[in-house]
Every structure is written in C-alpha cells, then in structure tokens.
C-alpha cells in the first residue's frame, strides 16, 4: 500500500501545490509531512506578498507568469477564497540613498519587462494616504499583490486531497534510497518504507538533511523571520508594502488585521532547534520600523507574533531541478523567503519536472549543479 507514482516530501505550499498539479495529471501521489500538522513551516509563516517587484531576474518570469495566469483564478480553481488582492506594491524610501536603492531595483525589474516605476511622495500618498511625511518617494508596481499564506497552503492541501492525494503527517523522512540507481524509496523515522517511481523533495531547509542521504547538498542556511499581526481595523488600504531598507513589509488582510514582517538584524544567528521561537527584540523593532513609515498605525494593538524558518540559498534563488546524478529525484528547495508568491508556478514547474515534461518556463537558472567555487 506504500507504493505510488510520486512521493512528495513536505506538505508546505510548494509541496502541496506540486502534489495537486501532479494529481490533476492523473498521478497517484503520496505526500509525507514531518510535522503532525500540514503547512506548518514557512508556508504559513510569511508576509503573504505576491510580488514581482524586487525579484531576482531569474525568478521574475515565474512571478510575472503567476500573477498573470495563476493567482487571479486560484481561489476559483481551489474552491477556497485565498484572499488574493492585486492592488500594487509600494516600496518606500525616506532618503536619497533609499531612492538610489529603489532606482536600481526598478531598473532591474523594468529590464525584465515588469511594469514598475519610481514615484514621488505626492503620488505615493495618493495611492496610500497614510504615509509618513518623512517619505520621499517609492517604487511602485501596480500589478503586485498579496494573499493569505495559510489559506493558500491549506487550499492546495484540501484540493490535493480531493484529487486523491494521500497525505501522511507525522512522517519524518530520514532517508532516500536508490534502487538500481534510481531514487525510489523513502524511509521514515518510524521505519516505514514508501516507494514510488519518482520522489520530489520540497521540505524547506529540512531538504538539506534529506538530500544528504543520497549525497546531494544545496548550500543553504536556516533563517528565522518574524512577523506580527495586529487587531483587526476597518479597512485602510490594500497595497503590499515594503521599504528600500527592508525594515518591514506587510499588508492589511481581508480580515482587517495587519500582517507585518520585520528584521532586527540577528535573525541569521537564531538556533535551528526544531522550534520556531521569536526573539524578544523582534516585536519592538518591527513596531518601530512600521511607526516610522505609518505613524497612524501606532495605536494599533499587536495581538500575535510568530517566527518561521526560511531556507536561504547562497545565491538567494531556489533549486528546481532533476539532478543528473540522482535519477528519479526532483528537488525544489532554497526558496530563500520568496517562495510563497511563486508557489502556484513552482508547483506547476516541479510537476513538469517530475513527469519529465518540458517545463512551462525556463528553469535552467535553478539547476542543482550551479554552485561553483568563487575562484
């Protein structure tokens, strides 16, 4: 009974999207999830940005394809309102140095064919009237947006289940096994063995440990990111927000609560110990950042904060590949904190890779064997 066409390891947004698109192609899929809960990692713990602006040039086509062809129909396709709003992204700057950063970023995106431009404070204020007077200008991408990460993840999971995907939670993968040269068996911590024609690893940072069992390594490190959620407030604006310095990012959700991520500078040094616990400095630091750009939000109450691990790849873009040295295996990891916004596209591309179809979009930049010595 532990035999299927494909095993997907990791039930996050990307794992479940991959499983869903594979099932839609008629494949028998099993998803193994380490945690007792699906979508418990970075998939449910991110700022919800569905951004094209600010993307690495290699990722930009994926983000643009998703925004154009997938996100607008996702709620309908999955049968769950994933709260996708495409009302633009404002990336704010307060100084000339900030504007310099935004200029570079804008030029890079425009070169990739994205509709993005620099705007002055007056125009930014027309788009979002709550900005601080200290703001000088902004990078503006009108086609960016945001969605609810928890709902997207669970909607893919739900739809995958409805399409016959078998999910086993609490199944921690300890080993991938080759059989006659092909990766086709997966062993879990309690000794269960699952076999399949193909195996896809979409387990965030934990992919590293799993891949090591077949001698693969993706140079990535765990990075703890923290977010805050406020009380719900009557609706103020729908844009996705960010800053040139990445002091914070976030949006007001459909519910009315604001979800903001921030950085305090010590995230990279958090201990990867199985938990995802925030630092005491995180909420204060994020609040100061937000108030600096949106003083009107200062009286809003924070009701919750959370932290989540992301898989920061050395070159900040993911690996999406069928490594030549491990036939039967598809790798999708190292999304470096921007996997959520491209998860529908990534799920489609990984499904392409798994079944051996020509990928919908070019994935050559995401090959496993791209990591070379500096000198």
């Amino acid at each position, binding site marked *: 009974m532990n035999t299927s066409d494909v095993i997907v390891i990791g039930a996050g947004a990307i794992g479940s999207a991959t499983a869903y698109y594979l099932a839609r192609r008629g494949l028998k899929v099993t998803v193994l999830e380490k945690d007792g809960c699906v979508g418990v990692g970075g998939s449910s713990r991110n700022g919800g940005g569905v951004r094209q602006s600010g993307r690495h040039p290699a990722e930009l086509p994926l983000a643009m394809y998703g925004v154009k062809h997938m996100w607008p129909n996702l709620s309908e396709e999955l049968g769950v309102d994933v709260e996708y709003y495409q009302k633009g992204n404002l990336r704010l700057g307060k100084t000339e140095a900030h504007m310099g950063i935004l200029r570079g970023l804008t030029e890079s995106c425009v070169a990739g064919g994205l509709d993005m431009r620099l705007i002055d404070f007056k125009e930014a204020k027309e788009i979002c009237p709550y900005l601080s007077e200290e703001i000088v200008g902004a990078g503006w991408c009108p086609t960016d947006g945001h969605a609810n990460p928890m709902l997207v993840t669970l909607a893919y999971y739900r739809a995958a289940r409805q399409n016959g995907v078998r999910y086993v939670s609490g199944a921690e993968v300890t080993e991938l096994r080759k059989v006659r040269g092909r990766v086709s068996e997966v062993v879990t911590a309690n000794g269960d063995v699952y076999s399949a024609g193909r195996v896809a690893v979409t387990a965030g940072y934990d992919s590293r440990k799993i891949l090591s069992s077949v001698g693969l390594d993706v140079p990535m490190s765990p990075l703890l990111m923290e977010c805050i959620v406020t009380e719900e407030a009557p609706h103020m604006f729908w844009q996705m927000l960010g800053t040139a310095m990445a002091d914070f990012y976030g949006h007001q959700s459909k519910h009315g609560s604001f979800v903001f991520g921030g950085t305090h500078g010590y995230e990279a040094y958090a201990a990867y110990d199985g*938990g995802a*616990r*925030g*630092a*005491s400095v995180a*909420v*204060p630091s994020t609040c100061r950042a937000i108030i600096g750009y949106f003083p009107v939000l200062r009286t809003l109450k924070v009701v919750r904060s959370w932290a989540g691990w992301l898989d920061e790849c050395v070159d900040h873009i993911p690996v999406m590949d069928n490594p030549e040295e491990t036939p039967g295996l598809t790798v999708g990891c190292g999304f470096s904190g921007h996997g959520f916004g491209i998860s529908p596209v990534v799920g489609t591309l990984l499904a392409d890779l798994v079944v051996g179809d020509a990928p919908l979009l070019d994935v050559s930049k995401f090959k496993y064997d791209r990591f070379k010595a500096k000198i």
Partner: protein
Amino acid sequence: MTRYDVIVVGAGPAGLSAAAEAAAAGARVAVFDENAKPGGQLFKQIHKFFGAKEHKAKIRGVNIGAELLAEAEGLGVTVFLNAPVMGLYKDREVLVRHADAVRRYKGDAVVVATGASENMLTFPGWTLPGVTGAGAAQTMMNINRVKPGHRVLMLGSGNVGLVVGFQLLQAGCELAAVVDAAPRVGGYGVHAAKLARTGVPFYLSHTVVRAEGTDRVTGVVVGQVDDTWNVIPGTEKRFDVDTICIAVGLSSSTQLLKMAGCALRDDGAGWLPVCADDGETSMARVYAAGDVSGIEEASSAMIEGRIAGAAAVRKLGFVTEEALAVRMAELESALESLRGGMFAPGRRGKIPDKTDEGLPISASLLSRGYLDDAEVDQYPGVKKTAGIRPVIECTQNIPCNPCRDACPKGCIKVEGGIVSLPVYDEKAGCAGCGLCVAACSGQSIFLVDDDTGGGAAEVTIPYEFLPLPGEGERGVALSRSGAALCPAEVVGVKQSPAYDKTALVTFRVPQEFAMKARFWRKEAVV
C-alpha cells in the same frame, strides 16, 4: 536588561508564595502581575478557606492575599503591578509592559504562576450580554462592588459555582437555581448545603437549553438530560433571570509556557505543562506553580509556589541540598494532606459510596444539595446530649480541621488526618461559645439546645448576610432544603472579632424542629 535571581510571573497565591520562599533564602526576586492589585484571585475569595492552620484555614482568601503580600514585601521582594508579561523568551527572558513602555528582564530562574481562566459552555444565546463566567460575577461584586445582576442562574455545581452562588446571595442577588448536567453536586456538600437551606433549588442532570433575550438575557430555559447528555423533550423549565453564570471548571493559563517552548501534555486533566515534582518544566529553571500546572485550590497553589521557590533557590545555590530536603519534606506533607479526601485531585471526580469511616455518603446531599433529616444522626459530629451542643453536619471527607482548633474545651476531634470527619466528644462538654460555628469554613456547624423550656429549642446558625436580624425579630425557620418549617423568633445575635464577620444568630423554635431548622428568614411565608 535587568537581571534577577528569580522572576515570578503572577502575584497570586502561588506566585507570592514562591517569591516569599525564594526571598527568604536570600534571592533577589521580582514579581510581575498584570493587575492593579496583587493577590490574583484571592481578593475575590471572601469566604473562609479549608485546610489546616498551615494552609491558612478559616482565614478568608482576601485576608490571605494581604498576608502573603506583606510577607513577600517584608522579605524584600519587588512586586511590579500593572505589569503584564508579554512573552517568555530564550534564556528565561521576559518582556514586560510598564505603562507606555516595555522592558526586558532575565531571571536565573523563572516561576510561571499565571493561574487559570474559566472554561465555558456553549448553548444558544451564550454570547448574549448577561451570560458571564462565575468568576466574572465574583470580580464584579467582590472587587468592583457592583451587583452582577438581580436574578441569577448558576450553571455548574462545583466549588466555584457553589461558592460564587453563595457570594451572589451575600451581594443581595437572587439565585434562581443551581444547574449541573452531572447527576451529582460536583463541589463540597457543605457548600451546597449553605445554598440549599436558603431555598436555592438544585437541578442536577439538567443543562441550559437556551438563553432568551435579544440584547441581553431576559430568561433561561433548562431541561433534564439523558445518559447521552441530550435534553429530554418535555422537561424544559423556564426561569426569569437577567444573568447566567457559567462555572464549569477552569483551564490553566499556559500561554507563556507554550510560547517559551515548554513541553505540554494532556492526560485527561487538561493541556498542562510537563513538570517534575518540584514544578520544573521541560525547560531548565523554568517552573510552573499553582493552577497553571494543574487546577486545584488556592491552598495547594500556595504550597506549590513555595515548593517551586525552594527548588529554584537550591538550583541557584542559596540553600544546601540538606536544607532543601528538610523544607521539601514539610511542604510535601502539607500538600499531601490537602490532596486527601473524597474530592482529591487524584480521584478525578469519582465519589465513593462510603466515607473513610465506613459511613454512607449522603445521596440526598449529592443529588439535592442537602442532607435528609433522617440521615443526620449517623455522623460522628452529631450526638444527642442534653443542653447546648454543637451539631456538626460535616459528612464528607474533605481536608479541613479548624473546628478542632476552635473549641477551647477540646470537644471536637479530627483525628487520623485532616480529611477525617469531625467527632463531637460529648464528655468534654460544650460551653456554647460558638467559636466552632464561626470557624467552620463550610458553615456546617450549628449549636442546638433541644430544651430551653416551654417546649422550645434554640438553634444557632452562622449568618453572613445583611441586614442582620435583631433580637426579638420574628421570622420563619427554614429546613435544610430551604422549606419554611415554623415561625421562629431571634433570641440572640452575636458578633465578635474572633468570628471574623460570621455572625451567630440564635432563634427559638418548637422542640420538634431543633434538628430540622437550619436557617432563618425574616419574611413570613405566604
């Protein structure tokens, strides 16, 4: 960052006790509490506590709170009020709000004593204004001094429901009924009896069908439940009430422990931190004490707090292993004596058929809230002797013995542990001083003189209501079930500092009612 040897979260009975214990050993201790007043829920507990002297028995909770605070502050503990702890982080760091700012502190040990919050029960209309937790009603009347409502239905017959029910009466509210889905009274029989004799009906095996009202509660419908907890059609009864109090148990407030990453589990008693015997959680030098580590009484919370405080200061090198062992032995024995009896936490609500003495447990008390008149004589606190004598209607094994200590003549014995039923030793001779009546936290001791001449008897009852009757005032005597028995004239009203606000009211009734009359009410019965 400010560092303390021990940081305590919560200035309730467990927290203040932990702080005092640690400070007494020389540790630098800070206590943080979100409330404006310390004491946790103690300041709402206006009733006298159970237990023995070492558990501060017969002292009212509100006074215990004041005593504990004085003890802790006298030992140099810094108590920060209006200081909610926002989070418990790595390395035992807490982030605390002070007015419009936050500040970070670290403790070499942290004792989490955040208490519990009330469980709720859902029924149609449960979100209407007027449906509240029983604790909310208690806060309103005993802290804020505002009546929670005029006419109240109490849902839940555990100790919280019974005690708060009595306090509602003390605040001048009417208590329409006590309702519980279980077939038996969940709390101490003595607490139930206090309500029943004032005429409060008990509806056991009943639940709320719905609360009525559009903008606020205007009534409630209850109905009898079958074995599967479904309401039996046709058994519905309606009460005109403006308030419904829910008293269906408490849940530990484990938020901080959860966010810190302490292991939790549920073995049927709720989602609780995994703790060692000394209260240490799965995280080193993070302790849980009091209700947060498992729901019990405030008396046990105080001891658990001391155990955690003692364990913490040992870990920090303030006391020797030997000194700790001595102290722990004392504390553990105190805790053990509280955890005995038929309501012991270990029994999980299983009520035995017989007392430890082999006497039957009153089925009437369990199902109706009062002893049947015919049952009373069989208990060792009830003996028929001439002249004035105590009648101790204490029929369940509960951890309590202030009656023994109260009697200057030594005529009340509680032997073989504090859960034993009190025995009236008639040979010692009762002087009729009434100290036992006032000392009984369960208000289950009465003085009876069967023959005061002219075919009359006199009954003395504990009385904690306003207005106090005056001597010569005529009213009616009520039975244990609250039924009007006969006219009764008040012949004595005694108040004394030694009684601690419990007045002793003596009324005269015809002799045949001496062993039946247990309450006095002013108004005549129609």
